[in-house]
């Protein structure tokens, strides 16, 4: 969400075509190679390559730790390649192109590929981790205290060094006052004469042959304490924090032989189903903890066949186009009209007007969207109160659609006004003067000269603005939240864009379904890419006509 929110277009993102046509400055290769090495140039080079090396080393350690050898290889090759490139005197064009390409890969290509790969999985709530994670979660969640068993006071001790020695649990039974020592081999009784027990806390405060760990020392060995399980006849003694222990038993255990989870209390088994990434019982019951698996084209099939998704898809798509075209077109018309009015030489106080007109653009659009939402409130909203209306703005399909486009118009026209003003100033006045000499009316000269020249300059911005509005999440989520919803379909509302609808699927109240959401975004990506490609092709033709 780094794109500016209010402006329906974002100038920096607009793919300008100038550099492509002009190409890189043609410099003689020999001249470049004999260019003197300046001190600043050298320092910059050393610092930057040093940073590259630093980043590579910083990134390498976690990769080694996680044993991602492939990623480590990519990192090493990339770093070596960068060093070679910038230390050699050859490959001048690559020196310019590589940084941009790397960023393009990191911030554009990789996310797209990641989204695409997610679309083939069931990644989402309940299916986030690996099967091993799920098995651990199932087993830990089933540990129950053995009924009627003792709750011990716990002291952590060791026979060796407090920081490294192997650990022993010193346990005292608060009722019988018996004392025990327990480790992975089992529990053995201690002689009461060898230990001191605090009368206040009931904990063992000293024991012959053991070094006792205080809480600070013990806390730094947390993993070892959690891992230490003292086997007993009925289950095992486990630590509960650092000062208490209980006898517990994992009711459910994974059995690799049958690839299933067994419940020792009820005897029920849940068999692993690799297709859905869950443990499923014979009666169809699933364990809540599942894992991430590839589901092939299932998500695509769901999008195309689920009536709740595909049913309203084309309606939503049509509205999505109407919204994006409406927002872009209306803001452009209004912005251009104002720009033309202020461009007239007879206009006075233009600077003041310009300042006032920019204001909506200068305000944070998040806040403005929320304020507009409240202004459309039926009973308390400014609009109804001011004009004495009783319109249920966000309650009716069409009134809600008009309302969100109105808000976009207000938020977006200053941008169009700004760029149109700039483009108008670049059009020589002689051209329009020449048309008026030829006897053209102002409208004719606008149609024949000003507008086409404006469009040449602004078409890329309009396309960018369209693409931005096509996916304008904030405009909808902060105002209507996609509503109003038909009484019989709470999943898809009248002002829902495809992206807000996807957002609801991915992060909605019913739990995250990233896999399905990624699939819908692939569809959206395809639509936006097609529309943009067609538009750019058309503008190129237009340009050829006028240039």
């Amino acid at each position, binding site marked *: 969400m780094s794109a500016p929110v209010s402006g329906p277009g974002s100038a920096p993102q607009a793919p300008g075509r100038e550099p492509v046509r002009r190409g890189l400055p043609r410099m003689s290769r020999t001249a470049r190679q004999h260019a003197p090495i300046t001190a600043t140039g050298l320092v910059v080079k050393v610092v*930057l390559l040093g*940073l*590259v090396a*630093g*980043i590579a080393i*910083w990134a390498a350690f976690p990769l080694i730790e996680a044993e991602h050898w492939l990623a480590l290889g990519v990192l090493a090759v990339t770093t070596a390649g960068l060093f070679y490139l910038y230390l050699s005197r050859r490959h001048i064009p690559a*020196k*310019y192109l590589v*940084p*941009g390409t790397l960023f393009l890969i990191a911030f554009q290509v990789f996310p797209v590929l990641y989204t695409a790969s997610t679309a083939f999985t069931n990644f989402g*709530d*309940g299916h*986030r*981790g690996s099967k091993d994670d799920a098995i651990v*979660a199932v087993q*830990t*969640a*089933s540990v129950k*205290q053995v009924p009627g068993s003792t709750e011990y006071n716990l002291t952590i001790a060791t026979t060796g060094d407090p920081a490294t020695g192997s650990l022993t649990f010193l346990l005292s039974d608060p009722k019988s006052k018996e004392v025990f020592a327990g480790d992975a081999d089992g529990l053995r009784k201690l002689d009461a004469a060898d230990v001191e027990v605090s009368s206040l806390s009931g904990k063992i405060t000293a024991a012959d042959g053991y070094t006792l760990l*205080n*809480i*600070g*020392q*013990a*806390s*730094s060995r*947390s*993993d070892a*304490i*959690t891992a230490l399980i003292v086997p007993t006849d009925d289950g095992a003694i486990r*630590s*509960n*924090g*650092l*000062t*208490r222990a*209980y006898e517990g038993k994992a009711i459910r255990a994974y059995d690799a032989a049958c690839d299933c989870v067994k419940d020792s209390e009820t005897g029920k088994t849940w068999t692993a189903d690799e297709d859905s990434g869950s443990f499923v019982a014979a009666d169809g019951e*699933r364990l*809540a*903890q599942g894992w991430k698996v590839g589901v092939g084209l299932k998500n695509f099939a769901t999008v195309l066949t689920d009536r*709740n998704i595909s049913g309203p898809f084309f309606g939503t798509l049509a509205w999505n186009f109407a919204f994006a075209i409406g927002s872009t077109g209306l803001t452009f018309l209004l912005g251009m009209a104002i720009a033309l009015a202020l461009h007239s030489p007879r206009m006075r106080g233009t600077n003041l007007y310009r300042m006032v007109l920019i204001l909506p653009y200068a305000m944070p659009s998040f806040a403005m969207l929320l304020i507009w939402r*409240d202004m459309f*409130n*039926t*009973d*308390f*909203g400014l609009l109804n109160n001011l004009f004495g209306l009783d319109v249920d703005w966000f309650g009716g399909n069409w009134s809600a659609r008009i309302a969100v486009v109105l808000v976009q118009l207000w938020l977006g026209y200053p941008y169009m006004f700004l760029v149109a003003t700039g483009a108008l100033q670049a059009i020589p006045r002689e051209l329009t003067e020449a048309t008026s000499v030829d006897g053209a009316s102002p409208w004719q000269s606008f149609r024949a000269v000003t507008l086409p020249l404006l469009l040449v300059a602004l078409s890329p911005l309009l396309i960018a603005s369209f693409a931005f509005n096509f996916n304008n999440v904030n405009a909808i989520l902060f105002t209507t939240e996609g*509503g*109003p*919803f*038909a*009484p019989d*379909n*709470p*999943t898809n509302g009248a002002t829902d864009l495809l992206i807000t609808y996807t957002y609801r699927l991915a*992060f909605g*109240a*019913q*739990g*995250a379904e990233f896999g399905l959401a990624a699939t819908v975004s692939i569809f959206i990506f395809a639509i936006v890419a097609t529309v943009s490609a067609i538009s750019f092709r058309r503008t190129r033709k237009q340009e050829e006509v006028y240039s």
Partner: protein
Amino acid sequence: MRIRTAGVVAVLGLALAASGCGDSGSDKPAADESAKATGGKLVIWADDKRTAALKPFAEEFGKENGVTVEVQAVSKDLQTNFVTASQQGSGPDVVVGAHDWIGNLVQNGAIDPVQLPAEQKAGFNETAIKAVTFNGQVYGVPYATENVALIRNTELAPEAPKTIEDLVATGKKLKAEKKASEILCLQSGQNGDAYHIYPLYTSGGGYLFGTAANGDYDPKDLGVGKPESIAAFQKIAKLGEKGEGALKRSITGENSIATFTGKKCAFLVSGPWAVADAKKANIAYDISPVPGFAGGKEAQPFVGVQAFYVAAKGKNKALAQEFVTNYVTKPELAVALYKAEPRPPALTAAFDQVKGEDADLAKFSEAGKNGQVLPAIPAMAAIWDPFGKAEAAIIGGADPAKTITAAGKTIQGQIK
């Protein structure tokens, strides 16, 4: 040359960002300098308000035990952030949040059960323990409960209404006398609000989930879409925009409390968090249970519980268990958290301690006495959105039978 400069700037920026990320690990312990202990580190995630209240206690715990304790505020989407971070292994050791997260946290393997000895359990409000129990295991240590009640402006409405019909009659009279512009401030908005409408839904006879043999909610027995729920919404529809006009979609979560404090409505259905605003606006108010329909069932609000959880993938689980089971169960901490945000403490001892100073607390707790524990099962997540939207549609005049049947179907389809 310009391209190169841009590249330089970009690489430099990236490098700075990267080194910033790298450093943050070593910056963190600054939270508690006094405990430069050799011991382990405990990281707690909570929302903004609770972070402030927790900090002094966390520091004291650190000092007492020679460990470093860090309380980090996560102001937005704490639950989602916690699940994501714990999946990546960068999560905290302890997290503080509402009990209805439990179902989702458990299915993502993000929290571990907490072993509370019987005598500790006995120190808590029974409903609170029931709320944090899921699949027969206790998953969190509760510290506060919350539920909605009817807050009324005693200048406009001196008597607490016994039934919703009484309330509507009083509200209508006030409206006719131009003393108020709304009958009742019960937030709905265009997309409904299942939490606030729930007392009326139960009074009309509706339910969400049946109860399974072990006392948990049973996702297989869905009450939405059943005849009882249709009957309940038929009663609610009568209060809606095409009926009495007591329930309106124009009253939203953002304006309902402000409308009440602006004296535009005499009755507000809200929780303890609204009291501070009422006090600030100098409104003479009183709190009573949300009334039900005349001749209907009891109006039961949802009871929610705030609790501490031990992260399953925390780096210092033993210390986290120690903190949650032995330190959080102290009344002093519960009182401090109550002072940071006035919700009734779940610990009976702490509740008794603050009850004397704050009469509202007892009234809220009285209003929640017959309440229903907000279901924590993952299936509950499927309820909120469709239920709320159906509510809004019915308040706006849609046919209750058709709307609720459709909502029931949608919910059923989402429960896996």
